[in-house]
């Protein structure tokens, strides 16, 4: 039973995360405090939302590299609105609308015009990033109201922030959506076998458009949390976050060829990604090692996983052919 559970990739990722924590504690016992442990999770809110959003798209077999730019433009618009005395609902609605709009454009380009998703989202990535410069005039957006920036430090219980609690609820809701509802299961069906999905009456075009819209909405939500946590917005905010979000999905066990993985896995992957920096501090290494360690972990995990998978496939082939041989021998 336990072994069967461990085969699930997101549990492997969780085991990896816990293993990481154990090793760090062994080296530096001061890591094992409620504060530093919960901070690993609190810090991951932005990447969790980005990764889960990108996860929708990756599950359908596409990719979205525009999430970092969507985070940039929606956080710039929301921050400007709040700075100029706008109310929170207005700012949030504006941000979500922008995210949904960019997602819709991506979805139409990829699903209707049938343009490879990497290329199309690359285009919207550039346009959205440029739009941040145009909108802000290249200046920083500062002097945000204190109640907004303070919100990121309000705790629900102990050291756990309201933000992380909310994000966890969202992730759970998203996971229920894709694993327990008809519409949601279509995402995985389309990613696994698009022609098969079409044959059983699923509309792949619609499903993919929804995936991109959800990705945009999650990215703009991430933008709002980002604004609250950082407290100011530069034109470069969120730049290159898309790569980290995709890496988090891969770490969490979502296959880039689609149809395989869970959003909870993506969320765990995001925690691994953000914990690395904090863990390095406790290991006494400088943050210069950040990218190196991330790269090594990503490559090693993916290679090991691919090798294990290949071996499993080979073994099952061998078993099938052995059975066949045994059957034929029995006949004679």
């Amino acid at each position, binding site marked *: 039973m336990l072994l069967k559970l461990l085969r699930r990739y997101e549990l492997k990722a969780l085991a990896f995360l816990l293993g990481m924590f154990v090793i760090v504690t062994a080296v530096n016992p001061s890591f094992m405090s409620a504060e530093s442990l919960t901070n690993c999770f609190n810090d991951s809110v932005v990447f969790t939302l980005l990764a889960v959003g990108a996860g929708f798209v990756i599950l359908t077999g596409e990719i979205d590299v525009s999430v970092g730019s969507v985070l940039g433009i929606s956080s710039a618009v929301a921050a400007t609105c709040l700075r100029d005395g706008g109310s929170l609902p207005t700012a949030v609605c504006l941000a979500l609308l922008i995210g949904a709009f960019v997602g819709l454009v991506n979805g139409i380009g990829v699903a209707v015009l049938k343009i490879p998703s990497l290329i199309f989202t*690359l*285009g919207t990535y550039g*346009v959205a990033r440029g739009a941040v*410069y145009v909108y802000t005039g290249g200046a920083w957006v500062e002097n945000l109201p204190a109640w907004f920036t303070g919100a990121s430090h309000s705790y629900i219980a102990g050291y756990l922030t309201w933000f992380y609690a909310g994000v966890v609820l969202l992730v759970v809701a998203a996971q229920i959506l894709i694993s327990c509802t008809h519409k949601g299961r279509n995402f995985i069906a389309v990613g696994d076998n698009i022609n098969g999905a079409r044959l059983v009456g699923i509309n792949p075009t619609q499903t993919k458009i929804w995936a991109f819209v959800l990705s945009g909405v999650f990215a703009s939500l991430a933008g709002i949390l980002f604004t609250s946590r950082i407290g100011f917005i530069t034109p470069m905010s969120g730049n290159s976050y898309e790569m980290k979000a995709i890496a988090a999905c891969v770490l969490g066990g979502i296959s880039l060829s689609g149809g395989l993985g869970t959003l909870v896995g993506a969320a765990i992957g995001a925690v691994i990604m953000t914990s690395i920096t904090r863990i390095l501090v406790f290991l006494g290494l400088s943050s210069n090692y950040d990218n190196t360690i991330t790269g090594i972990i990503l490559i090693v995990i993916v290679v090991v996983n691919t090798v294990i998978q290949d071996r499993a496939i080979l073994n099952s082939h061998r078993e099938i052919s052995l059975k066949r041989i045994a059957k034929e021998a029995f006949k004679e």
Partner: protein
Amino acid sequence: MKRWELALLVVLVAEIAIFATANPKFLMPRVIFGSINDIIPICIISLFVTMVMITAGIDIQAGAVVGLASIVLGVSWQDLGLNIWVAALFAIAVAALVGLLTGYIVAYFKVQPMVVTLGGSFLYAGLALLVSTLSSTESYKGISGFPDSFTSFASYRIGGVLPVQVVVFLVMAVFAYVLLHRTKYGRKIFLIGINQNAAEYAGINTRFIIMTTYVLSSISAAVAGIVLTSYLGTAKSDLGASLTLPIITAVVLGGTLMTGGKGSIIGTALAAVIIGELKFGLPLCFRVNMQYLDIPVGVLLLVVVSARAVASRPGFQVLVHKLKSHGRN
């Protein structure tokens, strides 16, 4: 010349004509060649990323390799005391090794190229940063003070007009063209992209060839890194950080199919120059803010690929056919 390359050429000529009418200075050799330094890395690297993409792979680590090559060059010159040209060769060797590792993982473990090079882009950017901390100079400052023979390389003009970088680009373009379109190796690359299993059954060592395409693209990234270092006079670990997406844009705009099996060096080279001139001409001739340049490049990419997708639809082609026959009647 194929139709797509012809279309790109028309776009390029139109682009230059528009810029030249807006600001006649644009056509002056000093100005137009002065722009080359900003676009030369994209031009050089995209040539060889084209080959990777034709095998149905992708290389998003090239930008990180540019920084790695630059900082390895700087550190091995300043702190190891190597001759600057030996240091440059050393940087190329390191990049080749890095490409070999990536290519090996992609080809022999059959891991998705996107994932491996994504990991590579973190790993090599991180390594570049670590190498820069080996140096006695602070890493954010970068290593400078290179000998004149090295820094004057990028500012040298052949015949007083033609910058050396252009020659480097042309030489590499011809090399890539011959390699991809005129040798057995190139035919094998195409066949692997069309159907890797068929290529394997045809007796081609597909794994080895896939691996070598990554080595080539990393070497080209190193060459770009060295040229860039020579031009800037400073070796830094993050020189190529923003190059990845323009490179992919150039390759795709050049007509290379992401699913592999189709693509051309001429197309990529033209597309790279189009993007480069767009980035240079808009600020010069239309006073567009440098920071806004992501928008025109993004719009260009979106418009071109959308138009191409619409034009290749059966419905559209039937419409064109009808219009043509209608015109004849």
